[in-house]
């Protein structure tokens, strides 16, 4: 088989067309000019020029998480490539399928400390699922096909393809391989029937089951299967941060999020249950706290596509390696419908006694803003968050009802993620309102993307929960570092966000009173031809509760303090934990 002779750059573009890529996020530069030239005339691929390569990768992640398709990035060599590192690490931790193409100096110059040279394959080896340096144009099409194959199959993740300038200028016949065979890569999808039967035995004999669902449910598109499974078992469902939206947050069976800032009742249910069914989750330390005291009375079943995720942090009784959707399809018909009414009543009592709460007043509470966004969008919006208090309050107070509606940086915890990720989501999804939730710290980490959003007339609502602090770090300083607020106060140095938005061609609003919040959000929702930035001046020193201190146990959980007395009790508890 031989195809038409083409340059490497043309081959790359043809491969993107073969992969049905419609959007590419990137930034040109010297070593990648040829590819940008080849891309110039292709109308089926829209290239979105961000204002920083990190923004391009987060946008590709947002696109991938919102649509389930691959996010594609093209950048140049050296600094262009190194600027993608944080985004790639983020995608690796959260299993996001992206393919990053980096320019590289000519292959005969590699190792010479040439201008704009960086060993990006070496740098990203530990933060990619796999990466390639293409040394011969004849291998290019195969490498690209393999990159897309690896990014999307098994446990998804980022793949990087490094493209030396001379390889992209050389020519070869273009043949796109039909399939990729890699002798070291055989993801296992279906789950071992013997293991599934063992799980059935445990499930059918339990009284107090809890389902603990993670991001794997969303990446394997298994929300419907999870719903059927939970409803058949009458089992409550708690979700990790990455799993929110996998099961409807407004359902009686939903416990919301678990872990460090999870709900009181989710953590107690996990603590008291006699059967814990982990689905596409990885027992992260923010979920488990002290692993020896985590869910001490339960027999544990763990479904995950990645064998290395199993028994990494917590030993389980029955591991099932496989794709969540396939395994649930086989598991659900075998389990019996359980009578869990006593257990669910107990949980309802906990929910009534220890709901998520805050006290409203004149000053805007961040929690209130999130609740209002939920009400006004009826849970239909796509929400991206940054990292810290804004992220936790969003996870707690927006009842995510649908998969792929929460887009957040879970594993790596990347500040500056929210806004560029919302840009990617806005290109991928047109029929949902898109909100980017930020703190006043994180928004400034990729604020340059206001230019990208404004130029493309994206109707993103950029919400800043502006408490003048790096709020989560300040919370830890308050609770664990004697209120010594070292380098966390931004109030005096923050810019005027409204003017900043206007300077970029977006709309800027500011709100300082609780009574204005709803009106301003309604106003913002009416604007559909530009980004709208809303600077909500919120309570300065507010904490996220409940909270289990890092490495702590459910017994050490601090609920929202009802009084000054309780607050001082919390502080003495914290002293005891230290």
């Amino acid at each position, binding site marked *: 088989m031989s195809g038409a002779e083409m340059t490497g750059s043309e081959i790359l573009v043809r491969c993107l067309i073969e992969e049905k890529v419609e959007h590419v996020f990137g930034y040109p530069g010297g070593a990648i000019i040829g590819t940008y030239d080849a891309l110039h005339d292709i109308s089926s691929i829209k290239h979105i020029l961000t204002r920083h390569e990190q923004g391009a990768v987060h946008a590709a992640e947002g696109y991938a998480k919102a649509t389930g398709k691959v996010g594609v990035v093209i950048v140049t060599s050296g600094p262009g490539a190194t600027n993608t590192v944080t985004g790639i690490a983020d995608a690796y931790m959260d299993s996001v399928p992206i393919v990053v193409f980096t320019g590289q100096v000519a292959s005969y110059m590699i190792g010479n400390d040439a201008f704009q040279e960086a060993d990006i*394959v*070496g740098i990203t*080896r*530990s933060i990619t*699922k*796999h990466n390639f*340096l293409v*040394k011969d144009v004849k291998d290019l099409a195969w490498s690209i096909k393999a990159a897309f194959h*690896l990014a999307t199959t098994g446990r998804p993740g980022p793949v990087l393809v490094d493209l030396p300038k001379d390889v992209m200028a050389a020519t070869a016949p273009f043949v796109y391989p039909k399939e990729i065979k*890699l*002798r*070291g*890569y055989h993801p296992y999808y279906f789950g071992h029937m013997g293991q599934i039967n063992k799980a059935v035995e445990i499930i059918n004999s339990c009284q107090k089951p809890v389902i603990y669902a993670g991001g794997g449910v969303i990446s394997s598109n298994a929300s419907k299967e999870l719903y059927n499974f939970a409803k058949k078992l009458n089992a409550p469902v708690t979700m990790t941060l990455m799993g929110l939206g996998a099961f409807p947050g407004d359902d009686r069976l939903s416990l919301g999020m678990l872990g460090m800032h999870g709900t009181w009742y989710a953590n107690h249910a996990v603590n008291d249950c006699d059967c814990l069914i982990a689905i596409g989750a990885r027992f992260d330390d923010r979920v488990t706290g002290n692993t020896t005291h985590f869910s001490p009375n339960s027999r544990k079943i763990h479904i995950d596509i*990645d*064998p*290395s995720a*199993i*028994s*990494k942090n917590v*030993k389980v009784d029955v591991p099932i390696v496989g794709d969540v959707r396939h395994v649930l399809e086989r598991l659900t018909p075998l389990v019996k419908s359980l009578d869990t009414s006593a257990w669910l009543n107990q949980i309802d009592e906990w929910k009534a006694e220890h709901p998520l709460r805050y006290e409203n007043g004149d000053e805007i509470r961040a929690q209130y803003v999130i609740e209002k966004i939920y009400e006004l969008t009826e849970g239909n919006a796509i929400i991206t968050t940054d990292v810290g208090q804004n992220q936790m309050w969003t996870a707690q107070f927006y009842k995510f009802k649908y998969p792929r509606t929460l887009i957040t940086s879970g594993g790596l915890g990347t500040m500056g993620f929210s806004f560029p990720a919302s840009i990617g989501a806005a290109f991928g999804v047109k029929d949902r309102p898109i909100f980017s939730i930020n703190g006043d710290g994180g928004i400034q980490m990729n604020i340059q993307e206001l230019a990208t959003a404004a130029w493309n007339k994206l109707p993103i609502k950029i919400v800043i929960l502006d408490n003048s602090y790096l709020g989560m770090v300040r919370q830890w300083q308050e609770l664990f570092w004697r209120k010594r607020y070292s380098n966390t106060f931004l109030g005096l140095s923050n810019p005027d966000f409204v003017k900043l938005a206007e300077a970029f061609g977006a709309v800027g609003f500011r709100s300082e009173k609780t009574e204005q919040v709803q009106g301003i959000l309604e106003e913002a929702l009416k604007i559909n031809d530009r980004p709208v930035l809303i600077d909500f001046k919120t309570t300065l020193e507010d904490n996220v509760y409940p909270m289990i201190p890092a490495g702590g146990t459910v017994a050490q959980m601090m609920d929202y303090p009802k009084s000054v007395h309780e607050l001082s009790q919390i502080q003495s508890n914290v002293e005891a934990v230290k």
Partner: protein
Amino acid sequence: MKKHTISVLVENKFGALNRIVGLFSARGYNIDSISVGTSEDDSVARVTIVSKGDDDVIEQIIKQLNKIIDVIKVVDLTYDSFVERELVLIKVSANRNTRPELMQISEIFRTKIVDISPKSLTIEATGGEQKVQALIKMLSPFGIKEIARTGRIALKREFEGTI
């Protein structure tokens, strides 16, 4: 903590060994020795790693190795019967008086003397770890100048029992 001998078949190409070594450093696993060479198939390299760790650490090491796309097969030989060898070159101080005794020791251990000079001898030894350790102990009173070791290589035995 038990010593494990792990045999890894990996694509014989650019960067593949780096992925394996990088995994050990990134995740804080320990490597006692590592040796690399091509296998019976030119396109495949065999990497033999000796590592110490609790069972769950070793389990993770094997899972993480399997996760590397370039890794084709991972076998923990520890629970099988296997043949292991290491090659070591030892340069030891020698003079007219000590040379005969050194040659006797070399003979007892069935090693070879591969270089000789008025002030030193270089001994080439192969064998399992215990033999090599014993030899080093016997030679150290004479003054060991330099040691070069290949690290352990190993293959599973096809016949159970001793050979």
